[in-house]
C-alpha cells in the first residue's frame, strides 16, 4: 500500500479522474502556476494545461456558477473555493441554483459539480480565514456534503463526489494536508453515505469529523489508560448521513460524544445529537456531549485561538464527563 499525504491524495483523485475523463476539469483562484493556496493542484497545470486547470478571477459566485453551468452540459467540474469563509460569496449559486435545479425542473437536469473548499484554525489566520461552515450546507436539500479526515478517505470520497450526479460540497481541513496515510494502490471509490468506524470500543462512542477525528483517536488512547474503551466513528459524509452506523454504535456503548471544530452552537453536532437522542433514547445512559469551538469568531493571538478551538483534551474531558454522569 503506497503512502500519500492528504494533499497528495486529493491531487491523485483529481488527476486520475482528469486522465480518464475529458469532462472532468478544475477551476479556482491561483490553482494553475501556483498550485492553489494549499498546493493541492501543484504540478497539474503541466500535465493538463490551463484550460482544464483553470485559474479564475476573484469571483467566487461566478466561479461556482460557471461550474454549475458546465455541469448542466454534462461536464464534471470541480470548483475550488480557496477558503470556506468565501463560500459565503458563492452561497447563492450553491444553495439556490446547484441544489435546486434538478428539483425545480422536475428531474430534467442533473448537476454533477463538486465544490471543494477548505478551512480550519490552529495557525492564527484570524476570523475570516478559518471558519467551519459545513452545517450550513447540511441544511440544504439537494446538496451532498462530504468532510474527509484521512488520505484514504479523502481520495476515495473525492472520487465518488466527482462521479456523483449531484452537487457535492466537499470540505477539506487545512491542518490535515500534511498528514500521511496508506492508501490502496488503485483508487477505490468510497460510497457517499457510509460512516467509518476508526476504532472499536465498548464504553462510549465519539463521533467526529475532520481534524477532530485525529484528536478523538488520540483522546481514545488516553482514555484507554483510564480503563475507558472508546469507539471512534467518522461519518465522513454529513449528507446523506449514515444514521444506522452511528445509532448502532451508540446502542452498543450507551454513551456519545460528538466532536467537530465548528462552533458548537447550531453545529453539525446538534443534528447528530438530535438524531441519536431520538433513535437511541432508551439506550443512552448519559446526555450526549458536544465538543466544538467556543462561541466566538476566531481570534488571532495563538493563546486565544487555542482556547477557542477544541483539542484532544477537550474530547477527553467530554469522555470523562459522559462516563461519570451515569444515568
Amino acid at each position, binding site marked *: 500500500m503506497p503512502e500519500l499525504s492528504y494533499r497528495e491524495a486529493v491531487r491523485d483523485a483529481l488527476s486520475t479522474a482528469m486522465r480518464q475523463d475529458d469532462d472532468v476539469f478544475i477551476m479556482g483562484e491561483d490553482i494553475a502556476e501556483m498550485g492553489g493556496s494549499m498546493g493541492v493542484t501543484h504540478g497539474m497545470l503541466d500535465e493538463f494545461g490551463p484550460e482544464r486547470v483553470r485559474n479564475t478571477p476573484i469571483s467566487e459566485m461566478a466561479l461556482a456558477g460557471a461550474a454549475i453551468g458546465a455541469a448542466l452540459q454534462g461536464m464534471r467540474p470541480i470548483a475550488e473555493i480557496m477558503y470556506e469563509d468565501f463560500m459565503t460569496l458563492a452561497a447563492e449559486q450553491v444553495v439556490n441554483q446547484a441544489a435546486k435545479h434538478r428539483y425545480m*425542473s422536475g428531474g430534467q437536469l442533473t448537476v454533477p459539480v463538486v465544490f471543494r473548499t477548505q478551512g480550519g484554525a490552529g495557525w492564527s489566520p484570524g476570523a475570516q480565514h478559518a471558519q467551519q461552515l459545513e452545517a450550513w450546507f447540511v441544511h440544504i436539500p*439537494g446538496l451532498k456534503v462530504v468532510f474527509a479526515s484521512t488520505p484514504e478517505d479523502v481520495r476515495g470520497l473525492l472520487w465518488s463526489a466527482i462521479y456523483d450526479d449531484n452537487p457535492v460540497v466537499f470540505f477539506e481541513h487545512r491542518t490535515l494536508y500534511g498528514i500521511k496515510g496508506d492508501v490502496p494502490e488503485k483508487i477505490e471509490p468510497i460510497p457517499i453515505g457510509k460512516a467509518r468506524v476508526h476504532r472499536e470500543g465498548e464504553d462510549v462512542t465519539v463521533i467526529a469529523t475532520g481534524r477532530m477525528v485525529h484528536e478523538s483517536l488520540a483522546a481514545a488512547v488516553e482514555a484507554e489508560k483510564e480503563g475507558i474503551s472508546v469507539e471512534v466513528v467518522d461519518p465522513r459524509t454529513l449528507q446523506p448521513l449514515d444514521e444506522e452506523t452511528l445509532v448502532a454504535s451508540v446502542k452498543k456503548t450507551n454513551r456519545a460524544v460528538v466532536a467537530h471544530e465548528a462552533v458548537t452552537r447550531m453545529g453539525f453536532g446538534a443534528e447528530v445529537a438530535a438524531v441519536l437522542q431520538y433513535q437511541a433514547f432508551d439506550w443512552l445512559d448519559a446526555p450526549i456531549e458536544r465538543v466544538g469551538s467556543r462561541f466566538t469568531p476566531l481570534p488571532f493571538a495563538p493563546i486565544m485561538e487555542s482556547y477557542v478551538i477544541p483539542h484532544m483534551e477537550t474530547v477527553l474531558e467530554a469522555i470523562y464527563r459522559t462516563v461519570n454522569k451515569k444515568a
Partner: protein
Amino acid sequence: MAKVESKTTLAKSDLPDVLREMLLIRRFEEKVEERFRAGELPGFLHVTIGEEACAVGVCRALEDGDVIASTHRAHGHTLAKGTHPNEVMAELYGKQEGCSHGYGGSMHLYDVERGNLGANAVIGGGLPQITGAALAFQMRGESRVAVAFFGDGATNIGTFHEALNMAQLWKVPAVFVLEDNHWAESTPESQHSPIRDLSDRAKAFGMKAIKVDGQDVEAVYKATRQALDYARSGKGPVYLHLDTLRFSGHYIGDPQVYRPKDEAKKLRETRDPIELLRAKLSMPDSEFEGMDAEVTEIVEASVEFAKNGTDPAPEDALKNVYA
C-alpha cells in the same frame, strides 16, 4: 455557413408567423392575468406584455443546440423557445404535464430538451451558468451559443458583473440579452442605476455591445443573429441591449402606485411591438382577426389542457431531490 448567412435577416414571408408568435404570447399572458385574478393560479407571476418582440426576436434567431437561461419573467421566453402553450399553462396550474412537472411554477419554467435551462427567480442567478455552459461548448469545440436574459435591474447585482467579466475574459460563446424595460419592480432606472445608457455596463469588461429597439422584432432578430455569429465564431461574448417597455405591472396584481397612471397606456398606443409589426405588414384587419382567433383558441385550449391535467401526488414532492 450558407445556412447562417441566409438567416441574417428574417424573410418577409416569415413575418406573419413572427406576428402570430408574438400575439400568442400576448394572449397567453392576458389569459394568465385573467386566470390569476379568478383565483385559479397559485404563486407569484410576472407577465411579459410589451416585451414580446424581445423573446420572439431572440429565440427565433437561435440555432438548434443553442441554450437559454430565462428570468422571473419567463413565459414569453419559454413559449418563444418552443415549449407548447399547453405545457407552460399546465405548469402554472401545478400539473404533472407542466414543463417542470409541477415542481417549478411560473418562475421556474424549464424545457431542457428544447434548450431552455430554466427560468430563475433570483435576479442574475442564471448568468454565471450561461458563462459556464458556454465554457463547456468552448472546451468541447461545439458550435453552440449560450444565451442569458436579464433585466435592467439585474445590471446592479454582483452576479451580473462577475458572470460577464468571466465570459469576456475567456471569450466564451455567450450572448447576454438585456431586456431593458427601464423598471426594476417599482424602481425606475434613474433610481437604481447611476448611468443612463446601460450599454455602458459592457465597457467594464471590454465586451462588444449592440443596442437596438426592442419593440422592433426584425431589429431584435437581426441584432441577435449578429451577436450569435460573433459569439459562435469564437470572437467572444456579446452584450445585446434591447430597449423595451413593460406595459403591465411588475407582477400580476401590482397596483403600480409608483407609476404615472397613463404612462403604460400611452406607450402602448405608439410602441406596441405587435401593432408595429402589424402596421409594417399592412395586414388587413380580417387577416389579423383570424390570426387572433387562432391563437386565442390555442390559449383557451391550453387552459383546458391544464385544468384537465394530472395533479401530482403529495409524496411526489420527495422525488427529484437527488439524481
